[in-house]
């Protein structure tokens, strides 16, 4: 390996060292004050850890049970609106966490669009959180399932059928073994996202069903129990690292570039096939669209007084800060991501490094930064750098994926036509990776606009963003505040959608490489 090829990674690696490694080491130091096993002897904290694992596992099971049939329909049947259904599935991925939480409340919470007519009272139960988790993660399982099913060899399925297998037996004995690694990879990510979930758990979990990340926040912000919080954070990190290792191990097995002779999609002709399509559409509507539709409905019917909140100076300032913080950090993340993604072409380990900020949750990152840099607490640069850190994987992995698609002899052709290395990058490589880069930047922008956990930890009261403002309104009594929160959530959703549209130029067909299994 020639070292000069890794040189572009120098700055991003230094950034990751300062923003990720040093804070983790600081957490280790802080946690060493108490016996890490003591947490497991405390019934309250033991419950938090076990529930966090359980709710992530339950979401995995639900996502598999619901997502696999939907994936099968999308992979095997050709019907009008199939593309729109795929896009609708990916919609939750760009929805900020708090917006999703409010969507779930608008649907199933008190006075919810569905809960009220049915007389459902789900407050104080785990169902709101589990449904919110499913809303966010169904797309991961469905997309992995569709990709995997499209790679199943048609001739193998045909061979199984001619050897006497029914269609169900052919699925079970030929297709299922082929798609299991893909699904396992997606489920690892689902587990990671749910285990370290913060916004949804904070709003929907209440006191009893909150996750470890929420507990870490409470210990730090409300009780100043830093040692206990650090020990809990380390257990979280250990669990996530184990899951990330499992994910990486599965990913290596998936590294098969050749695409098999795919099973062709057929138009639904039988009653069963048509029923399957209808069920898939209803499932996507019920899981991926209903919370957003309920949010829009509740906000639209909130009345002029609720919408009047948009004229408040506080709200306008929060909008300005949200846009300002996000765009500044986006510029930083794009520069760092380009350099890291470029260097990752020559060293596979850098791809794993680029993925690291996704493995460590924003709460743990923010808490680690507070301990590592106490003097910089509540400084604007730290907040912006944290935003950039959380956006970095989206950009870096998208750049790496884009560069993978550039034929190597294009750059060589440009060089023999008189272009210097920089000019070859500017005129050939950059235009070629632009779609992939734009997708990564678009998702990074959506992520930053909706950033909540790190902002709650690191920002000053006078730096209120839209997410923290929504959270403040939710914490105040009265339906007027809930209505105002719903309106602000719609505004945040509109901002995220606008950012995506402006950057990517069209509705996102799929999330960037950083967020999904291959």
């Amino acid at each position, binding site marked *: 390996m020639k070292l000069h090829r890794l040189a572009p990674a120098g700055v991003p690696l230094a950034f990751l060292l300062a923003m990720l490694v040093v804070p983790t080491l600081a957490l280790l130091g802080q946690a060493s004050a108490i016996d890490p096993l003591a947490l497991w002897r405390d019934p309250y904290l033991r419950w938090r850890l076990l529930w966090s694992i359980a709710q992530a596992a339950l979401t995995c099971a639900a996502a598999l049970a619901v997502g696999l049939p939907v994936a099968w329909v999308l992979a095997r049947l050709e019907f009008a609106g199939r593309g729109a259904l795929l896009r609708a599935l990916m919609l939750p991925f760009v929805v900020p966490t708090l917006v999703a939480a409010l969507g779930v409340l608008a649907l199933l919470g008190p006075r919810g669009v569905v809960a009220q007519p049915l007389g459902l009272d789900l407050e104080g139960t785990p169902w709101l959180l589990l449904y919110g988790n499913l809303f966010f993660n169904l797309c991961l399982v469905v997309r992995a399932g569709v990709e995997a099913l499209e790679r199943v060899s048609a001739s193998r399925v045909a061979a199984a059928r001619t050897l006497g297998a029914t269609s169900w037996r052919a699925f079970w004995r030929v297709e299922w073994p082929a798609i299991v690694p893909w699904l396992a990879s997606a489920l690892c990510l689902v587990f990671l996202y749910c285990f370290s979930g913060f916004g949804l758990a904070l709003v929907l979990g209440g006191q009893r069903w909150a996750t470890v990340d929420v507990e870490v926040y409470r210990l730090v912000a409300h009780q100043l129990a830093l040692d206990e919080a650090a020990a809990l954070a380390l257990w979280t990190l250990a669990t996530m690292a184990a899951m990330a290792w499992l994910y990486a191990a599965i990913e290596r097995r998936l590294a098969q570039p050749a695409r098999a002779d795919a099973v062709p999609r057929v138009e639904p002709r039988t009653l069963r096939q048509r029923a399957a399509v209808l069920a898939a559409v209803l499932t996507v509507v019920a899981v991926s669209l209903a919370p957003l539709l309920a949010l829009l409905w509740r906000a639209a019917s909130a009345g002029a007084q609720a919408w009047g909140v948009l004229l408040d100076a506080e709200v306008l300032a929060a909008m300005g800060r949200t846009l300002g913080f996000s765009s500044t950090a986006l510029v930083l993340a794009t520069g760092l991501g380009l350099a890291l993604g470029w260097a990752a072409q020559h060293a596979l380990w850098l791809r794993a490094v680029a993925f690291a900020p996704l493995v460590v949750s924003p709460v743990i990152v923010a808490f680690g930064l507070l301990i590592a840099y106490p003097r910089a607490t509540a400084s604007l640069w730290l907040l912006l750098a944290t935003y950039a850190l959380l956006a970095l994987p989206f950009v870096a992995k998208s750049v790496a994926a884009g560069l993978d698609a550039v034929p190597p002899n294009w750059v*060589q*052709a*440009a*060089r*023999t036509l*008189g272009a*210097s290395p920089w000019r070859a990058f500017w*005129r050939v490589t950059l*235009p070629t990776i632009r779609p992939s880069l734009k997708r990564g930047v678009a998702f990074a922008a959506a992520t930053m606009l909706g950033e909540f956990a790190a902002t709650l930890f690191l920002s000053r009261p006078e730096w209120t963003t839209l997410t923290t403002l929504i959270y403040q309104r939710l914490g105040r009594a009265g339906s007027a505040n809930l209505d105002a929160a719903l309106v602000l959530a719609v505004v945040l959703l509109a901002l995220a959608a606008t950012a995506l549209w402006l950057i990517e130029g069209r509705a996102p067909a799929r999330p960037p490489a950083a967020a999904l299994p291959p």
Partner: protein
Amino acid sequence: MLELRNIVVHYDARLLLRNVSLSVPAGQTVALLGASGSGKSTLLRVAAGLERPDAGSVRWAGEDITDWPPERRRFALMFQDFALFAHLDVQDNVAFGLIEQRVPRREARERAREMLRLFGLDGRTRDRVTQLSGGEQQRVALARALITSPRALLLDEPFSALDADLRRHLRSEFATRIRDAGMAAVLVTHDEDEARAMATQGWRLRDGEVETAW
């Protein structure tokens, strides 16, 4: 004159090229024959500056240019798969090298259109290269290579992606155009008929060494 002197290249600890020397006078086309994996394309990449030899030197008009980067050598390389840029249209592909020579974009495009007219592609200037047939892509690649008046033209199996009829038709057309351009040209191929039709002199690479074919 393009000269390769005592070129040595290892590939994965295997000696691929062993003291290979050859020279190509300006205005002449020489063919380099050899089986797959014999090192023909590697030798061409060494000449173009895309690979550095473990030993030996590349010279132009007597000057050692081994350490020169590809863009300074002004040797145009035509790739087996053409390596046309899919994000640019036909005229911008052809104008690419001129723009690198700081020719104003408008003038570069005008000259590209003129070149394309000579190549019978004046109706396709604004098309995407992916919309072209194999033969048309081949012509665009040659036009792109020739428009900057390079000192040498390096052709790496330029016809291998085309069907037999088109190959026969294009090789005589190419031979004429290269001769008219009056530059040193190296044709790498494994097809001896093609080599004899286009080149005045032939070399064969075998076991890492070069020998005269005709």
